């Protein structure tokens, strides 16, 4: 993986290297975007909508997204559902176990800013962006499967704009 990251640097020296680098960028980011495997991580009501999106009518598989059980093989966490204070260290642990180009979608109001449990709840994390870096926020409680798919499309647009060099 390290080699691929430095590839654009090497390619610059060759005469036609620039074109190869950009086209390589295009191919690699395109492939990354159209085959995201999401981690089966659902806590509350949004998890039911996540399952409904995986079912026949909305079908995640059309976007090339299959669910993976182990964080090692997943490259997207869809934080679907309320993240409580007891669950936050687990979410951080799962995020750390994932392989590097990894993304997070905050699905539903609870993961954006605590949703209906922001006030008067002593056990709910108020949003998850201080636990894991979030890429896409999806409003809704729970968001419709279409808005989840639209969120995935936004994530795909964001990935397609990425260059190879800039994943940390």
């Amino acid at each position, binding site marked *: 993986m390290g080699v691929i990251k430095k590839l654009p640097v090497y390619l610059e020296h060759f005469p036609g290297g620039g074109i190869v680098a950009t086209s390589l960028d295009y191919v690699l980011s395109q492939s990354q975007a159209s085959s995201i495997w999401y981690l089966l991580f659902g806590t509350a009501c949004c998890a039911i909508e996540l399952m409904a999106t995986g079912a026949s009518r909305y079908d995640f598989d059309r976007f090339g997204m299959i669910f993976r059980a182990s964080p090692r093989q997943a490259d997207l966490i869809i934080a679907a559902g309320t993240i*409580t*204070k*007891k669950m936050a260290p687990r979410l951080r642990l799962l995020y750390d176990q994932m392989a590097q180009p990894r993304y997070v979608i905050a699905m539903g109001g609870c993961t954006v800013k605590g949703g209906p449990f*922001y*006030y*008067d709840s*002593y*056990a709910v994390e*108020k949003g998850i962006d201080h636990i894991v870096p979030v890429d896409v926020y999806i409003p809704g409680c729970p968001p419709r499967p279409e808005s989840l798919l639209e969120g995935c499309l936004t994530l795909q647009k964001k990935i397609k704009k990425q260059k190879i060099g800039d994943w940390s």
Partner: protein
Amino acid sequence: MDKAALTKYILDKFAGKVDLLDTGKVEPVFRLESDFLLEFCRAINSDETLHIDFLCNIAGVDTGERFEVVYSVASVKNRIRFDFKIAMAYENAEVESVQSVWPGANWHEREVWELYGINILNHGNLTRFLLPDNWDQGYPMRKNWDAPDFVRMPES
């Protein structure tokens, strides 16, 4: 067995020790002393006409001036349902555990202990299970409880 017959039966079965409260809207609600609890539970469980074999719910309540532990029980065999409660002051509130009569009470009592701080005598497994393991901010369901990041909804 409708409400009036049930109330009369229980009142004259446990003459002095149980008194009826008027706050019960649908089913009768009784009040009894905490030391009489275990005996009362064994009696209603073994009594043939009552045969209370189903513990629906144990609810801890902080009414602002005292604690209450409300037991909702029912009988599957002859369709009886009623509640009884124990009121106690804030300091050293404690209650007998009714696990010997209904094993299902285990988690209900554990929750009452964890969220209200009402001590449950000889419960056997009083450990924390709803709140995070490193929780040190007291008993969150009490009315006077507060915490730095606990945000109340603005009174609109």
